[in-house]
């Protein structure tokens, strides 16, 4: 006997492993703790254009080619020809799978002719004829428009849920639902999971979020996860959360900043794994100091990541060369540059990108030049703060030493909440400004070091061809 739970293979326990269906998207699977449960009814909700169809099709084509076919049913919101036409433009689309592994069918004409009573017999017919492993109905919300009463719709949903639960099929109901529908539409009561795709306009660009609202019998990664739609489907950036410190072993070692004269003011250098906030006005030397700090990592074989939002890669290469370092050689020695245009900046994606670079390249030093650009780009300052706090805690756990540049004319002021928050999350705070003697002279002052002595007095600095030097 080969059944998965036959007597020959069972042991005393009656525990069973409930299988899941992969979304075909690594990050979505991670958020869903492994994917959607098999034999479940799932709702993918979101306004038009949020990516519901692409998400469902990516899932279908990822699961295509297995034993049983997968069925995509269109209703009344979009013609079948249009859905297929656009699906072909996605890189995951496989024309060879159409008609065999992936079957597109139209329910719209039957719905229009017979009303909502046409749905259950058609689904039963599809099950008997095709034995599908997955059924997608797009859009199920459109079916509501044909129901003559709430009672009729409730009866339909109850019947449909009965059929879909009886058979070994996983179902996805797509729809242009809003939050209000969750309380009133019967399909939400029978749904085993609800995934919401959102889109918020922010200036000239959109921010999109993937969010799990419900997942029966399983944990999931809560909250809003930013995503972009690309040719290969949804590119999701799972929300960064504060890491566990259970296995964290602090390293009590100092490392050099690479800025002449600074280490002496800070008790002998920066603690490894510490975060330093470098505050100063335009032209005060923040970016140069950031590059010096990053390039210093080469002396220790410590890969460094320089993240910036203003200077493009060519400009950064010129800045590196100006410091007397060959940028090509620096790259080969572990100096990495991550540039994102401030116009396209989405804080979730950039922070997740930083984190991915750190993991992939074994980065030990990070410079963010400048966090003010992130603040400007953030639609929600609190969200940015939470993300950055989590990122900084990941730095701590990984003993990554970081330098965060922050543009400010007046240093850190008590009246500015944003500045205060950045200051609190940093181990060290350094202020750049004009020397007290006036004129064109520049100064540097260490105003905070956590777990270390420091010299709090103002010191003159010079910006030379080789970089910034503290006098």
């Amino acid at each position: 006997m080969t059944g998965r739970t036959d007597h020959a293979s069972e042991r005393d326990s009656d525990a069973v492993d409930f299988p899941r269906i992969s979304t075909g998207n690594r990050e979505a699977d991670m958020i869903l703790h492994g994917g959607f449960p098999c034999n479940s009814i799932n709702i993918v909700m979101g306004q038009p254009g949020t990516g519901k169809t692409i998400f469902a099709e990516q899932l279908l084509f990822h699961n295509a080619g297995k034993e049983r076919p997968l069925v995509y049913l269109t209703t009344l919101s979009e013609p079948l020809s249009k859905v297929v036409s656009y699906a072909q433009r996605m890189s995951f689309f496989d024309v060879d799978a159409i008609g065999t592994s992936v079957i597109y069918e139209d329910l719209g004409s039957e719905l229009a002719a017979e009303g909502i009573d046409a749905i259950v017999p058609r689904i039963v017919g599809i099950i008997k004829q095709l034995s599908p492993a997955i059924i997608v109905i797009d859009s199920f919300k459109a079916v509501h428009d044909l129901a003559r009463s709430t009672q009729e719709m409730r009866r339909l949903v109850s019947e449909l849920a009965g059929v879909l639960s009886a058979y070994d099929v996983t179902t996805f109901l797509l729809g242009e639902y809003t939050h209000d529908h969750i309380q009133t539409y019967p399909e939400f009561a029978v749904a085993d999971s609800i995934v919401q795709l959102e889109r918020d306009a922010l200036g000239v660009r959109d921010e999109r979020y993937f969010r799990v609202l419900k997942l029966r019998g399983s944990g999931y990664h809560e909250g809003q996860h930013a995503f972009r739609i690309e040719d290969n489907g949804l590119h999701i950036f799972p929300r960064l959360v504060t890491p566990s410190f259970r296995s964290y072993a602090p390293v009590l070692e100092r490392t050099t900043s690479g800025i002449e004269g600074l280490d002496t003011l800070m008790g002998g250098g920066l603690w490894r794994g510490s975060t330093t906030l470098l505050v100063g006005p335009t032209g005060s030397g923040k970016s140069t100091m950031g590059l010096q700090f990053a390039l210093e990592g080469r002396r220790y074989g410590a890969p460094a990541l320089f993240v910036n939002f203003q200077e493009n890669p060519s400009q950064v290469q010129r800045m590196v060369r100006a410091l007397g370092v060959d940028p090509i050689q620096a790259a080969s020695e572990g100096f990495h540059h991550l540039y994102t245009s401030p116009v396209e900046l989405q804080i979730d994606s950039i922070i997740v990108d930083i984190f991915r670079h750190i993991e992939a390249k074994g980065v030990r030093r990070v410079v963010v030049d400048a966090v003010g650009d992130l603040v400007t780009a953030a639609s929600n300052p609190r969200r940015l703060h939470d993300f950055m706090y989590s990122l900084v805690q990941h730095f701590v756990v990984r003993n990554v030493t970081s330098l965060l540049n922050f543009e400010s004319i007046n240093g850190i002021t008590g009246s500015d909440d944003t500045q205060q928050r950045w200051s609190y999350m940093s181990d060290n705070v350094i202020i750049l400004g004009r020397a007290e003697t006036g004129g064109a002279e520049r100064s540097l002052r260490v105003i905070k070091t956590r777990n270390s002595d420091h010299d709090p007095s103002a010191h003159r600095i010079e910006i030379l061809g080789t970089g910034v030097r503290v006098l």
Partner: protein
Amino acid sequence: MTGPTVSPDAERALVLVVERDPHVRDLERFFLNEAGFAVDFAEDGLSALETVQARKPAIIVTEIIVPKLDGLALCRKVKDDPALANTVVLVFSILAAQGRARDAGADAFLMKPLAERRLVETVKALLANRQSARSHPRKESSR
């Protein structure tokens, strides 16, 4: 789709399905008919027992959660009755209860939902095993 293995002209093996859910019943009937079996239904354990006694099905496919007499109690009663004990019992349930099904004397356990290939192949294999046991009965050892 698994094709029928029983000739249309031959007498079809009778499967008694003990199930309340109309959707599961409909699908079980369809797939078992397609596979060449005759199908009868009972909605509760007591009426199932009466049908077993009256019609002598080749196999009982029973859910555990059925009224009056649950599927496991039905299985025990069938297996404890010498006149019925040869009846194959497949427990097919929403409950993860393979251990309890075995303790009740069931020949096999499958967990829902219904996947026709798994169901039909299990039924066929169980009936083939029974046929084989009848054709080649074990000799009792003498002491």
